C-alpha cells in the first residue's frame, strides 16, 4: 500500500521578522549664555606730543592764530560713555616768576568732539566738551542713554585755540602743557 506523505502546512509561509529599536535618548540640549563687558579701546595711538613751535610773534608778544587739532579712533561698545577733558596752561618750564610786563603762562581753550550714533537710522551727532586751561577744574559729561561713540575711524577730535597771554612779552624758554581726555565706559 502506498503511503502518502503529505506536506503539512503548519506555518504561515514566508514571514519576516523585524527587530524593534530600543527606546533610548535621541537628543541633547546645549544652552549657552554669556556677557560682553563695556569697554573702550584705542585703535592705534591715542595721544601724542604736539610741538607748536615759536609762540612769540615778531613783537615778542604771543603770536596770533595758534591752534592745534588732532584726530584719533576709539571703539566703545556701550552707550552713555563718560567723557572728561582737563587742560593745563602752557607754562615756562624754567622761569617760575615773570617780571612785570612779561608773561610765562599762556592760557587756551581745549575741546573734545566725539562722533556719536543712536538708534539705527538716526542721524549722526557730535558730543562736545570744552575746558579752559586757566580753570583748575576739569570739564566732564556723558554721551547720554542709548548714545554710542560712533564705530568709525577718526571719531574723536581734540583741539585747542583761543591762546591768550595778554599783551605782555613772552619770557624765552620752553613751554609745556597737557590736555587729558578720559573716556569711561558705563
Amino acid at each position, binding site marked *: *500500500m*502506498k*503511503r*502518502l*506523505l*503529505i*506536506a503539512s*502546512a503548519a*506555518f*504561515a*509561509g*514566508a*514571514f*519576516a*521578522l*523585524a*527587530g*524593534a*529599536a*530600543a*527606546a*533610548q*535618548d*535621541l*537628543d*541633547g*540640549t*546645549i*544652552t*549657552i*549664555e*554669556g*556677557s*560682553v*563687558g*563695556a*569697554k573702550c579701546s584705542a585703535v592705534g595711538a591715542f595721544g601724542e606730543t604736539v610741538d607748536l613751535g615759536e609762540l612769540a610773534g615778531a613783537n615778542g608778544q604771543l603770536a596770533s592764530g595758534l591752534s592745534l587739532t588732532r584726530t584719533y579712533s576709539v*571703539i*566703545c*561698545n*556701550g552707550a552713555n560713555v563718560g567723557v572728561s577733558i582737563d587742560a593745563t596752561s602752557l607754562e615756562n618750564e624754567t622761569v617760575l616768576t615773570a617780571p612785570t610786563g612779561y608773561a610765562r603762562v599762556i592760557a587756551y581753550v581745549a575741546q573734545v568732539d566725539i562722533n556719536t*550714533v*543712536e*538708534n*539705527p*537710522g*538716526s542721524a549722526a551727532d557730535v558730543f562736545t566738551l570744552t575746558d579752559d586751561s586757566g580753570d583748575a577744574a576739569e570739564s566732564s559729561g556723558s554721551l547720554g542713554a542709548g548714545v*554710542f561713540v*560712533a*564705530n*568709525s575711524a577718526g571719531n574723536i577730535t581734540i583741539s585747542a585755540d583761543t591762546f591768550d597771554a595778554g599783551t605782555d612779552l613772552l619770557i624765552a624758554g620752553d613751554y609745556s602743557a597737557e590736555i587729558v581726555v578720559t573716556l569711561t*565706559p558705563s
Partner: protein
Amino acid sequence: MGLSGSIRIAIIASGAAALLWAGGAAAQTAYAVGQGSPNSITVPIQVTASVGGACGFDIAPDGDYFFANLDLGFTQDTVFAINCNGASRVAVTSANGGLLAGGTAPNGFSLIAPYTVELSLVGDDSVTAAASCAAADLALSAASPCSFRGTASEIVGLELGGPADGTSQSYVRISAPAYSGPEALVAASGYEDTLTVTLAASL
C-alpha cells in the same frame, strides 16, 4: 482477500491565504520507499528577517554654560556617547545662529556674537567622523545651511560609518576666538543660544 491495485491521490496545496509556497502552488505527492516516487517532498519556506537600527545616546550631549566677556574668546566641549548597532548620524540646530542679545544695535554695532560648532564622533574599531560649522549656518533659517544642520535622520546629519557601543567619547565643541568683526559687539549681559543635538540610525 485484500484489495489490490493502487489509488493515487493528488494532494493540492491549499489552505489559509497566509500560506505561501515558494515555486507556486503545485500538488506534491510523496510515496513510501518502494511505493512510488518521489519519496519525499520539500517544502521550501522562505524566511526573511532584519535587525532594525537601534540607536541612542548612552550619554546625551547636554550642557549649560556661561561665558563672561565672551568677546575675548571661549571654548567648551560637551562629551557624549553613541550606542548604535550600525551606522548613525548626528545633527545639530542653533536657535539663534549665534549668541544673540536683546535690544537694538545702532549702525556699526552688533548684538550677535558668532561661534563655531565642531562635531567629533567616535565609534567602535577606531571609526570616526568630524566636521565643523558656523553657528550661523546651523540656524533653521540659514541661507547656506551647513552639512550637519537639522534633525538627525537616515540621511540628515554627520555620519558615523560604523557601530558604537557607548564606550567611546564623542563631543560637541563650541568655540570662538577673540571677537574681531567689523561691527563692535554691544556691551550686554544676555547673549544666548541653544543647540539641539539629535541622533538617528543611518541608512
